[in-house]
């Protein structure tokens, strides 16, 4: 009997000592290459420090809600959410506040008034407009810094950039900001733009490729620049243009710029098909998420954060140009 109690106590003690805190990671869709890269980085950064549960919402907010419900039941110590619908964060934050489970959102930013509902709701992301400004920088690098005397990339020498815009999701916050800001920024710098077409391709490579096929047919070699809201669509455009016979002669090297800095874009940049991209630094964001998690769960102090925590709520990581 005494032996039994001793064994029992030992088991309990061992159970206690071995128990890791549980953190779950709810991503909106693992079909998204960028999100997948980020997930890998987060996993690597956590380095088995916590019991990490990764769940894919398959682009359904209702599925994500069910995951949240089950993670609440499992009494997670913290939930990291990449929301399907950023407005759904309102109810999620209220629910998690009631259950006192801290939450870190990333990639899709909840409304500020929703994040402010609770002091344990955080957001890790990027300075949205910065990506567009950097894209404008890229355009400047390509076409030369004198807006009135463009270089050879202005093939018809009219000092007007004839461009195609590949937009992400219609109405998506990032897509809207990236699109409007890159144009605003270029206009502010004095460039004359002729937007041949703004095509919505929903962040998708295949959709971008298909839509680009039609655009190329219509505008042929009058396209002087393609600005894409992300790399996937940019790569789709490259594939389409190569099919149409671009990139064979000098004059048909149409500069294409993207955003995200996916791993596969590096080879495209090297071969010159992709003029450049703006790195949405998934590694840095992953690190920020992990450090924030450690801060919330008491393993790290605010002084030890690599990225600054603003307003006790936001960590916004800088974009970088890759050319």
């Amino acid at each position, binding site marked *: 009997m005494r032996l039994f109690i001793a064994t029992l106590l030992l088991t309990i003690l061992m159970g206690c000592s071995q128990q890791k805190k549980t953190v779950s990671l709810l991503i909106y869709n693992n079909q998204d290459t960028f999100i997948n890269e980020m997930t890998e980085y987060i996993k690597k950064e956590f380095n088995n420090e916590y019991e990490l549960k990764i769940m894919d919402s398959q682009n359904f907010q209702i599925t994500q809600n069910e995951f949240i419900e089950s993670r609440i039941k499992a009494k997670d110590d913290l939930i990291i959410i990449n929301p399907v*619908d950023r*407005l759904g964060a*309102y*109810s*999620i934050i*209220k629910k998690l506040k009631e259950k006192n489970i801290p939450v870190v959102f990333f990639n899709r930013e909840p409304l500020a008034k929703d994040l402010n509902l609770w002091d344990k709701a955080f957001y890790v992301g990027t300075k949205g407009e910065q990506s567009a400004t950097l894209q404008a920088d890229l355009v400047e690098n390509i076409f030369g810094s004198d807006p009135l005397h463009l270089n050879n990339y202005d093939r018809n020498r009219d000092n007007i950039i004839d461009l195609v815009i590949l937009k992400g999701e219609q109405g998506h916050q990032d897509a809207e900001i990236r699109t409007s800001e890159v144009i605003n920024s270029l206009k502010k710098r004095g460039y004359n733009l002729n937007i041949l077409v703004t095509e919505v391709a929903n962040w998708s490579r295949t959709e971008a490729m298909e839509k680009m096929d039609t655009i190329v047919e219509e505008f042929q070699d009058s396209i002087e620049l393609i600005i894409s809201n992300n790399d996937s669509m940019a790569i789709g455009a490259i594939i389409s243009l190569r099919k149409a016979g671009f990139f064979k002669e000098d004059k048909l090297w149409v500069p294409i710029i993207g955003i995200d800095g996916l791993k596969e874009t590096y080879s495209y940049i090297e071969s010159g098909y992709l003029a450049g991209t703006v790195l949405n630094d998934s590694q840095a964001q992953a690190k920020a998420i992990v450090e924030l998690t450690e801060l919330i769960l008491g393993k790290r102090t605010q002084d030890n954060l690599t990225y600054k925590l603003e307003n006790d709520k936001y960590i916004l990581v800088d974009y970088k140009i890759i050319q």
Partner: protein
Amino acid sequence: MKNRIKYNPTIGQNILIATLSIVIIVLLFTSALYYAVFSNRTESLIESQSREINKQIVLNYENYINSVIETANFIQFSSLGMDIATNYNKLQDIFTFNSSIKKDVVSIYLFDFYGNKILGDNLNNTYYKTILEEEWFIEAKNEMNISHFSAPHSNSLALQSNENVIFLSRTVDYIDRSRKRRGILLIELNFKALKDLADKTNLGEGGHILILNDKDQLIYLSNNSENVPFSKSFEIAVKNLLGGVKANIDSIQYFININTLIHTRWRIVTVNNVNDISLARKEMILMMFVIFVGSLTLTTVISVYIAKRITSPLNKLKDSMFRLESGDFNTKVEVKGQKEVVRLSKSFNSMIDEIRTLMDRVVEEQREKRSNELRALQNQINPHFLYNTLDSIVWLAENHRSQDVITTVIALARFFRISISSGATTIPVRDEISHIENYLTIQKIRYVDKFKYTIDIARDVYDIKVMKLILQPIVENAIYHGIGDDMELIDIKAYKDDNFLYFEIENTGYGITPERIEEIYKMLNGAQIKQSVGMRNVYQRIKLYYGEKADIKIQSELDEKTQIKIIIPLDIMEKK
């Protein structure tokens, strides 16, 4: 100390208790297990089913909202890139065309930030002035990056509309005289589409759909008939914020799913009647109860019957034993039933038979013993012998043979002392021999030396105790039968071997014929002959006292001698 009454249950009770408890335990265990499994299954079935229904409904609503947003996007991006100043008519056409061609769109407007209508149909004047204060306007202006939905209401801005409508409003950029401006795009949507969506769903009796806005106000209820307990489900939805929860409203089971609604900060709540499934569980409990009671009754009946079958022959047996106890030995048990009990009753019957025979024999033996003792007593004080002896003494006295008188009287006195010997049944061989010597002394005087005798006793038998007065009748016979013309010789011997003590009385004389010896043996064993009463008496006494091994043997040579041998087993004697 407390007196604990120990209760001994009968076989019947034992059987009943045992079978009932086994059946109850097994039934309870299996039904509990079954119920747990079933309950668990139905529970998860209820949940997964209503979640599935909920998912379908929510996705329908999300599809609807997505399509509305797409309409807004389409209008925004197909038209607002154009300069209004130069394309006014074209834009106006797009707006009116879209509102007329799309079934769910009632009207489309564009306002500037000051509330002035830029594009769209004519306004209903009643609302014209208040636009700046309308919630849809303020919210769209404040939170620019999202589309805002209003609750359904009947305040359409359109001139000739009295439908219930929902407003979608958002901040948009438009170009007026080559300048970019900000304005509010408003799309009025037909509420009917939302209603049709709800009508398609089946949430069971009293099931319904609620939509709560971000201020926890009920902005939509799919079914407002009387039996819909929406106020309670609304309370639960407000309290639970998000997720699935089972609820009992007015004693009907519902499963309530609370979800976010895409592109809005609203929550959509589906309330699903799951009472039917819960009822199935209740029915199962009832069924299990019926099975429980039924099998319990059946077991009781069967075990009572079995117990009866076992105990009723036993009871019969018991009654017979009681009768036996009260002395009725003529009882016979006739029992039918189980083999064991029948065998038991047979044994019982034969036991009674045995007891009866034994008792008869005991009674017989007792009677025999008593008459023998009486005879022994008669032998002790044989009046003839006493008269004869006294006659001899008188005769001796008359002849002045005073020495012989003395000898005789002393012998007589000793003879009687040993005969009576304080009523003891057994005496040492020594005393028995001394008794015989006294007897012979007396007889020798009486018969005036007509015989001689010798006594030869082995030393190791002196102290053995034997039944008294067994020699005297034999010796008496020897004297009577042996006295004749010649001097008679009587030899008395006593010796023993490992198993027996022997007395031999041998006398000379005519002897006895073998036929006569046969007769004597018969007589000893009970044939009614009036001779040799003394010997028979001795024979029966030793048989009674020492058992079957004790015996008397007669050997005779005609005209020579007769020998009587008394054989007494030593083992029995020693025990006595």
